[in-house]
């Protein structure tokens, strides 16, 4: 091994590249950019401004932050619903004025002032909501108009009545308490924000109205088609925004006990920047309250920090503008390219050096030498079925197979020309086995372990196992259950081929070659599923040994067979009993003579084996070429191999013409005949086995004669 190759082996087998792709799959990675921005902003200004973290400074900052956050929460909800609310600047000012006027001019109690502020907010919000939701005007223009009108009214009012309010002698302890005091270390605005944020978050993520808002923002038409009242939902988002902004206005009024011409000026831009910088999508449907809050902190720290560092409002506006532009760009580019990034990052090939296999070429003289005998197999169901990964026969000689349409099809004995859909399961039924009570148990690709009773009732037995501690993407779920066999005590041993890809993406798993296949056991007594073994390169066929003391299972991409011991000194341990085959093994099933049939789904090629030693090349291949162009094991030739308990290869059957059985994924012996299935094929083969026991059937071998 050259130094370069050793370096590659270390690089690609020790560095867990696959984690990046798995993390990117998480929705919360959307929060990463705003979170980093938040930390950076606080750290930058905190280190530049002396006393930034002092208690008084924080108290004042957080009061302001509380009010501002309330506005941002309202705006976030509107944006999640697919709208925009520029009127918050006007609502805020008018609500504050309503509170001031009620309290100072009319000398009414504080709770009336509170109601006045909230009502003002809700009314203006309702006007917005009515115009946008029901009349269906454009949100941007409508709220802009309301902003202008609202600000105009506010300025008229403040000019005429501002001084009266200022000269008022009214005072109240409650008013001052709300404006200045601290409860449990928090100011009232901060507490209010925490409560409102918490309730809003719960409502958005866990309640029907909240989901409706997200659904409407995500796609109005789909939401409408799903029966959601889109207009009402939009209406209420503006009402909610008016409510939180009114609340913020009231808190502002209590803090400053007065309003001026500048109250709420430019607030809409600040709030919008905050919501977008936090990572809420302008397009709607994507975002959260937490993101809004992060954005609020970033924007407020930045604007206040710049003022305290002595920069003027011009600089401030400029920074805000740039911030908004950057955030919008990132939002759009990220939304558009996220899946591309994920696609490029996800496949993370590993290094593997396969040892040379004995040749399987015709005329090579090895035990694995393939011939053309399978090309003589007769066809069952030619063109009627698609993708019979596994085939099985019952006591009445009827033939069953799964299809890629999610059905289990039954062909009737004795000539197998008539067929019916035995049961519709969904997914892709792969491995099949009969249990003692003649229930058909199936590993269904992308779904789990299922049972079909003789009267066609489909039940799910298992779809998950225990999650492993180090998993990033939940690996409890069975992504590619592949084959199973059943022990005399009823325990069902089955394989889940890969944790990284869904069943239909098995080609990707071969390119990546990472060992994530599992052997599991399902206990029908308590319905539990346990993981027995983990970390194999595509676990596949499972077969109980004839003496039931152990089972065999295949590791496809490693071209190996393993034996897992159920009894005896090695119980609970697996050992590799056959390695370096020239073909990729699939299902294993019992043969009548005490041996085992093994299917080869494809053949190793020197070019693919070499590519396994060049993980960087495979990575570039996945990034630079479309999937149809990728190098792949040669699945246009497969075969059937019979071996015994001492791992002697007894016989091989192949179809070198590739015309009827290019790839073989399963075979069953039944009364001297071999039934052949292929996941890529459109037929079941029927092959007469020379010198086979004409009476042997698997149901009898497993469960005895029917009583």
């Amino acid at each position, binding site marked *: 091994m050259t130094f370069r190759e050793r370096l590659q082996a270390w690089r690609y087998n020790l560095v867990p590249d696959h984690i990046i792709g798995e993390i990117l799959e998480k929705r919360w990675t959307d929060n990463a950019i705003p979170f980093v921005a938040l930390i950076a902003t606080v750290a930058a200004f905190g280190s530049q401004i002396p006393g930034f973290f002092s208690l008084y400074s924080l108290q004042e900052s957080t009061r302001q932050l509380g009010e501002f956050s309330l506005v941002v929460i309202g705006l976030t909800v509107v944006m999640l619903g697919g709208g925009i609310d520029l009127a918050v600047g006007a609502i805020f000012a008018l609500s504050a004025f309503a509170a001031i006027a009620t309290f100072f001019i009319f000398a009414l109690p504080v709770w009336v002032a509170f109601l006045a502020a909230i009502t003002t907010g809700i009314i203006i919000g309702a006007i917005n909501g009515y115009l946008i939701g029901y009349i269906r005007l454009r949100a941007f223009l409508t709220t802009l108009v309301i902003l202008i009108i609202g600000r105009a009214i506010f300025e008229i009012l403040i000019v005429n009545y501002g001084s009266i309010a200022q000269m008022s002698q009214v005072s109240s302890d409650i008013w001052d308490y709300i404006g200045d005091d601290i409860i449990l270390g928090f100011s009232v605005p901060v507490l209010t924000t925490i409560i409102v944020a918490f309730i809003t978050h719960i409502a958005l993520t866990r309640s029907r109205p909240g989901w409706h808002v997200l659904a409407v923002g995500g796609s109005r038409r789909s939401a409408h088609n799903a029966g959601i009242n889109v207009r009402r939902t939009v209406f209420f988002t503006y009402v909610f925004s008016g409510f939180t902004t009114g609340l913020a206005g009231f808190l502002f009024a209590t803090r400053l006990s007065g309003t001026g011409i500048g109250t709420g000026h430019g607030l809409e831009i600040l709030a919008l920047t905050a919501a977008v910088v936090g990572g809420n999508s302008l397009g709607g449907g994507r975002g959260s309250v937490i993101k809004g809050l992060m954005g609020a902190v970033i924007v407020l720290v930045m604007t206040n920090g710049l003022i305290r560092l002595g920069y003027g409002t011009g600089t401030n506006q400029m920074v805000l503008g740039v911030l908004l532009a950057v955030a919008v760009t990132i939002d759009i580019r990220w939304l558009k390219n996220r899946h591309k990034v994920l696609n490029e990052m996800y496949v993370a090939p590993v290094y593997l050096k396969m040892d040379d296999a004995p040749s399987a070429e015709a005329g090579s003289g090895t035990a694995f030498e393939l011939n053309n005998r399978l090309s003589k197999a007769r066809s069952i169901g030619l063109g009627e079925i698609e993708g019979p990964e596994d085939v099985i026969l019952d006591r009445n000689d009827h033939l069953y197979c799964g299809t890629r349409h999610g059905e289990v099809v039954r062909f009737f004995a004795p000539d197998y020309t008539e067929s019916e859909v035995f049961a519709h399961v969904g997914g892709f039924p792969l491995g099949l086995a009969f249990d003692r009570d003649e229930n058909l148990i199936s590993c269904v690709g992308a779904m789990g372990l299922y049972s079909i009773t003789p009267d066609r009732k489909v039940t799910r037995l298992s779809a998950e196992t225990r999650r492993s501690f180090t998993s990033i993407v939940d690996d409890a779920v069975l992504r590619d259950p592949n084959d199973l066999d059943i022990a005399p005590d009823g325990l069902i041993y089955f394989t889940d081929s890969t944790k990284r890809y869904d069943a239909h993406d098995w080609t990707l798993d071969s390119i990546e070659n990472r060992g994530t296949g599992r052997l599991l056991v399902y206990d029908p007594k308590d319905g539990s599923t346990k993981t027995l073994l983990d970390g194999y390169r595509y676990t596949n066929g499972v077969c109980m040994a004839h003496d039931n003391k152990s089972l065999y299972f295949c590791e496809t991409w490693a071209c190996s067979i393993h034996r897992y011991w159920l009894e005896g000194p090695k119980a609970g341990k697996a050992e590799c009993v056959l390695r370096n085959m020239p073909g990729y093994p699939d299902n294993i099933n019992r043969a009548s003579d005490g041996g085992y049939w093994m299917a080869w789904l494809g053949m190793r090629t020197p070019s693919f084996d070499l590519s396994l030693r060049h993980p960087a090349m495979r990575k570039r291949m996945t990034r630079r070429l479309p*999937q149809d162009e990728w190098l792949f094991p040669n699945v246009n030739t497969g075969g059937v191999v019979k071996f015994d308990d001492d791992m002697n290869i007894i016989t091989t059957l192949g179809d070198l013409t590739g015309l009827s059985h290019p790839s073989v994924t399963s075979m069953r012996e039944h009364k001297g005949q071999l039934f052949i299935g292929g996941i890529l094929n459109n037929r079941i083969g029927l092959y007469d086995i020379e010198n086979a026991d004409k009476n042997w059937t698997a149901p009898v071998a497993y469960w005895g004669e029917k009583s």
Partner: protein
Amino acid sequence: MIFDPILDIFRGKTITIPPMDGAFRANTDLDDAPSFANIDHADNLAILDDRLIASSGNLVYEFDDKGKASQLHKFDSEITAIALSPDGRLTVALDNGELLIDGEKASLPASLNCITAIAYSLDGTMWLANGSTKNPASSWVVDLMQKNACGSIWKSESGTGTFNQITDALAWPNGILVHDDHLVVSESWRHRLIRVDCATGIKENLLLHIPGYPARLTPTLDGGSWMSVFAPRNRLIELVLQETHYRYDMMASVPRQFWIAPALSSGNSFLEPLQCGGMKLMGVHKPWAPSRSCGMAVHLDSSMKPTHSHHSRANGHRHGTCSAIEHDGRLYVAAKGGNCIVTIKAGKSEAGK
């Protein structure tokens, strides 16, 4: 996007190849066409005394109208190119580096040892395409995988017996068409036709972005020509050509017929590389699947613009078409990988319309 060149560094630039469209639009003409003769490795076609002749391994066959083959010559080494001089002498280039003019061994310069195509001017001047200075003609795939560009064009005026190089630095010149004052040369590894001035040797691009590896060129009566293309361009092969370490490891450790490289025929062994799109699904091998080999004969008009073409696609068998020639209103195409010569009525095909 303006960021693409920067992002390409991180994400890898997508590999693209020219599509089989327009004049190159795929059809099944070559597989539908009747077989004229079945001979192994049918390679270079020529017309001798109004009869079709073809090289095949180290043999030259002559065919009657029915396609019945009779052996004309036998040589010690594999034949790499044949041609007839205006006065009817058969010129044969062999893989061991020899050039036989009417059975006479010509004395060649040392670097002229990989003759891939021969053509004559009407005045008897012989033009030779030398594929490479580093590999014999039979090792063409090695030359491609080494990414060589050391081919050249040679000239030998009638009766002189001397050979002069007129241009070099060509990436496997594989076909020559003689015009009055210039040659048209197919450059396989660069997927293009170039014009080479007979006197000065100055090169000019004529036809770029051929969706395959062009081979020999033959003239037609109407002033156009036939270009045979022996393998399609394939994105995986283009990737391998850029993957230096993998490519050299492959050349060192994998038997040549199983390389990820163009081939004259494919799908014969399960040890050959397979691409995802090439897997047989539900008993069907998709004709548009990526393939290492194909059959293609392209008609070019007098300005060397392609007009229409005849194909054998991924699921066909008449692959590795190294020579196509028009004779008596019929087009004969030799499929070296398909071990046959097929014949099609010349003129625009149905699919090409």
